[in-house]
């Protein structure tokens, strides 16, 4: 190798080295940038602001949603099967929670119109656990009387008209009108002496009533010596516990008044929060950091 070619080679490799060095720095900056941005997605999780009411069966333990976050593949198949469109997907403002399904109960609660928990069946990863069979098995949250002062029943008031105003878009199953299709809440007029919408529309309470009715029919048929043509109920298809009831309490002035009381059977579906006819914030809300089986 002659001296001149050797020199030439070094000059070449110098500029080459310089461009390589620049490329390396650029690549390092790109890596750092993208990693930092993706880590920024943890902020809403750490702050706890991304916790929401989740669809039935979500793999979570109260506010610890790590399993739900990790197992969900963010495809939205649960969104697609919900007959009342209760399920929505989170956006980027929820950071790593992007694409996770949630329910805004005040806007549209899960009313178990589908009976069979379609979202659970649709979930491709079991992020909505397949261990559930019936609505009463779910543990989404737990209802709580948040603003007794605004509750109509507490003031001894009744309710007349449509629950959430004529422009409300939400749907609800009204069994006695249409067993199979949820109807707009805005088309259903109420006229009740003491407001008990949260109790009367509770899907768990409705199911308990239906079960009691069926059981009565079955017993009657049995006592008449006919073959039991009404199928026997089994498992949690019939909720084992009541979820909500109207209780009579004495107020400070010694007057008797009614108030809805949440019971152990509440699954946190949010129908009470949705139907509460109080304008603005509802009197009754669903907490996601409490569930029935929680101490």
């Amino acid at each position, binding site marked *: 190798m002659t001296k001149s070619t050797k020199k030439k080679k070094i000059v070449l490799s110098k500029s080459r080295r310089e461009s390589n060095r620049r490329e390396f720095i650029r690549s390092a900056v790109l890596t750092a940038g993208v990693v930092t941005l993706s880590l920024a997605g943890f902020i809403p999780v750490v702050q706890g602001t991304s916790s929401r009411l989740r669809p039935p069966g979500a793999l979570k333990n109260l506010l610890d949603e790590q399993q739900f976050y990790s197992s969900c*593949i963010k495809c939205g198949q649960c969104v697609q099967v919900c007959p009342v469109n209760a399920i929505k997907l989170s956006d980027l403002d929820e950071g790593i929670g992007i694409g996770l399904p949630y329910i805004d109960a005040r806007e549209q609660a899960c009313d178990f119109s589908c009976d069979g928990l379609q979202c659970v069946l649709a979930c491709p990863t079991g992020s909505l656990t397949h261990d559930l069979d019936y609505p009463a098995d779910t543990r989404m949250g737990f209802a709580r009387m948040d603003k007794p002062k605004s509750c109509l029943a507490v003031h001894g008031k009744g309710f007349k008209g449509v629950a959430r105003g004529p422009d409300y878009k939400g749907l609800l199953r009204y069994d006695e009108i249409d067993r199979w299709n949820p109807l707009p809440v805005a088309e259903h007029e109420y006229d009740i002496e003491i407001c008990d919408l949260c109790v009367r529309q509770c899907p768990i309470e409705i199911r308990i009533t239906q079960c009691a009715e069926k059981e009565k029919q079955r017993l009657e048929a049995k006592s008449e010596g006919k073959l039991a043509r009404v199928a026997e109920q089994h498992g949690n298809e019939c909720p084992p516990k009541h979820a909500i009831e109207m209780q009579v309490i004495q107020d400070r002035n010694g007057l008797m008044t009614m108030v809805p009381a949440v019971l152990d059977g509440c699954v946190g579906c949010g129908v009470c929060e949705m139907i509460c006819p109080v304008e603005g914030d509802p009197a009754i809300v669903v907490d996601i950091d409490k569930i029935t089986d929680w101490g």
Partner: protein
Amino acid sequence: MNYIIESLSQVFGNKPSRPSKEEQPEALKAIYKRKVGNLTKADIESARHEHRKTCCNKWTRRRWITIIVVNFLFLVSYKFDVQLLEGAMTASRFVGFHLADLNSALQVMLAYKHVVLNLVIGTTTVFIMWLLLGGRTFCSWVCPYHLLAEWTEMIHVWLVGKKIIKSHTFHRKTRSVFYVIFALMAILSGYTVFETISPTGILSRAIIYGPGVALIWVGILLLFETFVSRRAWCRYVCPIGVTYAVVGTISPLRVTYNAENCHHEGDCRKICEVPHVLDLTIRGRASDINLDVVSDCTRCGMCVDVCPTDSLNFKFKGLDKFL
């Protein structure tokens, strides 16, 4: 075997291997030798001219239609409640049958540390599907981000051509680094971190369930690709591409190169999303007369369209024996 090793090597960011003179068969050397001094600019120009008469953008057209139709199918299935293609790009049901994107499923399994049966069914189906169809075929034939990136790439190339901006490159190994980082982040944190910034998932969900603020991130990426670096996300970041490129190493569907009539003018390398895979079209770089383009190739077919001498073509390995 050589194909698999060379493919994986290039997927993970190594430079294409240069065959030594000894490795090249005599017939290939003869072809190279024949062309020295015989190929003039006029020859190449006339070949281009002839080529333009016969074809143009056949594969690009088919591909764009496919991307639009597939993504539209997702939307239609949801909006009109037909059970055709329910879900999103990350996981779906095709006429009730589970499908799961390999990379999304991998991220979920790494983060969740369980294997769900439905996900196994879905990933197996998708694995076999893309195995037959070429692996990174997913990128150029289905991924909604790819289509947008292709359009901004046109703007980018135009701007560079007008010398308004300068195109910056990154090291191709960056993508492998990202692949490891995203896998580690999923394992260690227990969250599917990559899904948060994946423009494929974001766009697919936006198309189906409506737009959201996440589209701003996609917009930033597209702007970056327009003004800073050509196809940066797909070339240097996206782990989905790596996953499918690995699948593609054993796929029979490939782009194949024949050195016989090649003018080595490089039209194919100019339009290619992953031009390193076409380095074998440079004179002296091929190790044989007939060679398959390695699996990092997205099978987009643009090189097949643009090649003035029909030296690049699609092939399904083994199929010619049956036909």
